[in-house]
């Protein structure tokens, strides 16, 4: 089974999703829920055995499978994992379990479809993280949109149509340019779709820059980077809680992953050439978006902007080309997965009770909901990058790395210490603390055991990674070092840098 494990991780979620779907209408909702939970736990356990079988000492792809798929175009079903995709797959399987538990009582309509959408999406996302064939990657990349489109469009808020169309058009437009780049690479590589072939493909600087920009338009939208970020707050506001969690925790990571897997190794010279642009946009995200987050009235919007600001550290870390920066970027992606996921769950807890996401409808929640308040403050502190939580690890490493590249980058990035704390704690002050503002708040029930379970899983992860990140870093060392070595070697036929 060992050699088919990765395929199993991609297809079992999709098959189980179809099975859950087959339970049909809401009369059998209980079965659908249990089935979905059972499958997601099995898939999580499978991903653990993938991790256990993973060799941290090689940068080569592991668990590889290679079968002809569309032989006319030389397209292969080619998959594998390395130290960069491994942690992201684990993140995906953990969070799918969490969202399925989180949707347990909350989703009462079309339960089977809801659960199935998340399972199918899980498989497709693992597919993106393990595809080694450009066409396979593209297919998974685009397929991923469909379940999310449905999740927002069916279980979403009142303005969901606007949000889904915006989300869909934004991401599709970016992806199409990526497709053009991939087709170009197909022609210049004499008909290969193997991503690893592209890594070794020599390219003149102009071609590299064009390819970089085409890929950039796909990945920057997903991250999202300033100024193509405005779809995210809208999508989050309209998405149901589970949708927001997966969107923030995993889907945004696709952008960062794309930069690592495609942009940096395929176009190393263009990456160096355009690093100034990436760094500038990242720093704008860190500071400007934080200021915008500060004045949001809607908690989900605030957390969405906070996500964009935190993802700025990912792109910053990747384009300063040193180990601390790149590993910091990876840690930031994982940590942001836990923290933003948890914060969206927290907002979901409140929304389920009062149907409001507005900060000013709350106040003094700590009195009726002490356990919730404790958890919320924990995640808020993690969001401010407090040492001892996972939020610190990535930001710390990226700041160290960028100090080596240029101290001014570090100075600007470190402003997040102030702004990040300002918008997060101001929200905490207005929502959690203070006098209970009205009877509705006074009557709120504290978190139930299901909610404690979902938030508890994430709390444990946030603290564990914060207190001892080394086991996670060890998985990625070899691959990251290999990547950076590769990016440092010019691919131009003539010396171009």
């Amino acid at each position: 089974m060992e050699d088919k494990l990765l395929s199993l991780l991609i297809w079992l979620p999709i098959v189980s999703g179809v099975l859950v779907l087959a339970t049909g209408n809401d009369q059998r909702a209980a079965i659908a829920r249990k089935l979905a939970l059972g499958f997601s736990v099995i898939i999580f356990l499978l991903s653990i055995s993938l991790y256990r079988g993973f060799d941290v000492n090689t940068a080569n792809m592991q668990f590889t499978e290679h079968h002809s798929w569309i032989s006319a175009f030389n397209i292969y079903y080619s998959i594998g994992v390395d130290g960069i995709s491994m942690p992201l797959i684990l993140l995906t399987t953990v969070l799918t379990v969490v969202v399925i538990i989180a949707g347990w009582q909350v989703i009462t309509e079309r339960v089977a479809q809801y659960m199935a959408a998340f399972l199918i999406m899980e498989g497709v996302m693992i597919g993106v993280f393990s595809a080694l064939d450009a066409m396979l990657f593209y297919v998974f990349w685009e397929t991923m949109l469909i379940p999310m489109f449905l999740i927002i469009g069916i279980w979403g808020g009142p303005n969901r149509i606007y949000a889904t169309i915006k989300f869909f058009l934004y991401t599709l437009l970016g992806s199409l340019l990526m497709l053009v780049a991939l087709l170009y690479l197909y022609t210049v590589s004499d008909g290969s779709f193997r991503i690893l072939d592209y890594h070794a493909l020599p390219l003149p600087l102009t071609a590299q820059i064009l390819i970089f920009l085409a890929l950039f338009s796909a990945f920057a939208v997903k991250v999202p980077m300033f100024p193509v970020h405005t779809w995210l707050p809208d999508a989050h506001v309209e998405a149901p809680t589970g949708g927001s969690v997966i969107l923030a925790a995993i889907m945004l990571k696709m952008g960062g992953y794309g930069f690592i897997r495609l942009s940096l190794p395929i176009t190393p010279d263009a990456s160096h050439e355009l690093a100034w642009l990436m760094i500038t946009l990242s720093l704008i995200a860190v500071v400007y978006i934080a200021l915008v987050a500060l004045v949001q009235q809607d908690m989900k919007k605030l957390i969405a902007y906070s996500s964009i600001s935190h993802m700025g550290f990912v792109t910053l870390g990747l384009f300063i080309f040193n180990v601390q920066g790149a590993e910091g970027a990876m840690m930031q992606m994982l940590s942001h997965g836990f923290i933003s996921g948890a914060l969206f769950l927290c907002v979901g807890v409140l929304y389920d009770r009062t149907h409001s996401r507005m900060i000013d409808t709350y106040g003094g929640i700590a009195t009726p909901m002490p356990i919730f308040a404790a958890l919320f403050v924990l995640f808020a502190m993690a969001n401010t990058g407090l040492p001892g939580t996972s939020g610190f690890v990535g930001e710390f490493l990226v700041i160290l790395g960028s100090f080596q590249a240029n101290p001014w980058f570090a100075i600007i990035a470190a402003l997040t210490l102030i702004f990040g704390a300002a918008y997060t704690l101001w929200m905490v002050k207005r929502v959690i603390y203070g006098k209970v503002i009205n009877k509705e708040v006074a009557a709120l029930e504290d978190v139930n055991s299901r909610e404690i379970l979902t938030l508890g899983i994430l709390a444990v992860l946030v603290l564990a990674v914060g207190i001892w990140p080394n086991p996670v870093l060890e998985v990625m060392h070899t691959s990251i070092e290999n990547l950076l070595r590769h990016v440092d070697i010019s691919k131009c036929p003539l010396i171009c840098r």
Partner: protein
Amino acid sequence: MFSLVRFGAVFSKINMSTVYLIIPLVCLTASIICGLFGKAIGRRGAHSIAVSGVALAFVLSLVVYADVQDGNLANQTLYIWAISGGIPFQIGFLIDQLSVTMMVIVTFVSLAVHIYTIGYMADDPGYQRFFCYISLFTFSMLMLVMSNNFLQLFFGWEAVGLVSYLLIGFWFERDAAIFANMKAFLVNRIGDLGFLLGIAAILYVFGSSDYAAVFASAPFVKEATVISPFGEWQWITVICLLLFMGAMGKSAQVPLHVWLPDSMEGPTPISALIHAATMVTAGIFMVARMSPLFEFSETALSVVLVIGATTAIFMALIGLVQNDIKRVVAYSTLSQLGYMTVALGASAYEIAIFHLGTHAFFKALLFLGAGSVIIAMHHEQDMRKMGGLRTIMPITYITCAVGALALAGIPPFAGFFSKDAIIEAVHHSEIWGAQYAYIAVLLGVFVTAFYAFRLLFMTFHGRNRSGTDIIKHLHESPNVVILPLVALAIPSVFAGFIFFGPVVVGDYFGDSIFIIRYHDVTQKIAEGFNGKTGLALVLAAIWHGLFTWPFWLAVSGAVGAWYCYCKNTALPAKIASASGPIYRILDNKYGFDDFYQAVFTKSTVAFGKLLSKHIDAGLIDGTLVNGTANTISGFSAILRHIQTGYTYHYAFVMIIGLFGLITVFVWL
């Protein structure tokens, strides 16, 4: 203390490194139990666990203290937190004279405060939560002082900040409290910004986060410079200034001091433990720990000196006009932290830590004394409504008087020795800014004595000015409150003359503090006592003190306070109205708060609103995104008109087209 040496010998058979580990972990465990199982263990369970936890930590700290006196230092790694780019980041302990001194101070004051809390917080519904927080604080502070590397230092640094945030906002239903805790956290974060960048610079320059490695290579990189838009700078100066920025936040130095007075919104035991005795001294400790770096940058030392001196005198002046008993003590804390910072700037690190220690005792004492008064007065904190409590609360009175005498620096109380040593040290210092600092700390002595005795006289002397209801119920506080007061009063009396000899004349800190020979002002003070030891030395120090300015300034401050608040009680109001603008400036705390509120807080929010509305929603989303969508749909709306579906429209267009084409062909 000395019999403990033998006791320590027994312990050393047990692995000492286990003992180091137990000290912080026992506090963490107590905190977790109180936090997670508060309901199950009940109030009794919570305080039993927390108090015995910190008591054990205190006893073990004494054991380690004795062990260190025997010469057993340790520098050990606990585990590797992370490795990135070949640099290992570790969690580990450095046990030397400096860290063990801090450990004893922290656990002792913490123990006193734990016990006091049993009485002070008896009626509070958040009792278990409170014990959870203060035990967590003790853990964090211990990790901070025991660290052997910069990463863990930052961990502890931020963790104590977190607990401070939670505790200032402990009564989270009070608006003032939740404003104060956010303010404290954010102002501290400004300092932490510098601190974190300082650590990044250290890693960049030294390639290591371990104290030992960094300190060892400091002499070799002192020449290294960095060229910035502001000229060429020594790397070490840049690093020290960035680190000191962190210290300014945590140790509340001007202009990052604004959070500390507001932090008094937290329960009084917290003011004693965190915002007076221990956490706020983290910055002082940190600079002393970094002496192998600061010694190589006279620029940084001068900045430290000037900031410290400014804080020492100007914050003391505000203390003169405060009427809230806790705020008087709070401003006194600011001023005393300034004194410690001055000592650091003068390269008298040992004396800074000496004053840190004596101050921890007498300031915790004053705060807990104030708390005792506040309970008796039914949570009245305005000194104008107090008075005459001397006879009703004799033990509180006596212990507070001890605290005031120690604070004012009257011999032979603890504060006299440490404060006098600071003033002497500045007097001997030759670095830039030392003259200014000398004048500032001298004037500060008068002001300190004045407000200390003003507090004592307004609270305990004269007649009681509160309502009759309160007067009827006034009584001395319960034993759990009194006991810590007495426990803290003892070192407030004796700590000075026990430690003056070893610290100032002897070699108490060994190699844990590094001083370049020509900076060593402590050595110059020691030379003044030409070889005296023991009691003779202490007596010589007191005798010397009686003939110097500070003593007479302190006495005149005390007498002045007596005249104004016991003899001629109408005088203060007259002075206040006569001094007009000066009084208003002091009452307004030099306008720092208003200035920050207007310039930073409000304008940041306004700027955020502007960006959100005009750039994000306006330009990007409105014009570019939806604009594109609207243009396309608008364009297609026009194009749609062409496709009407009527045959005659199409036929008509065809005919026009035909004519058009024919015309073109004919003309060409």
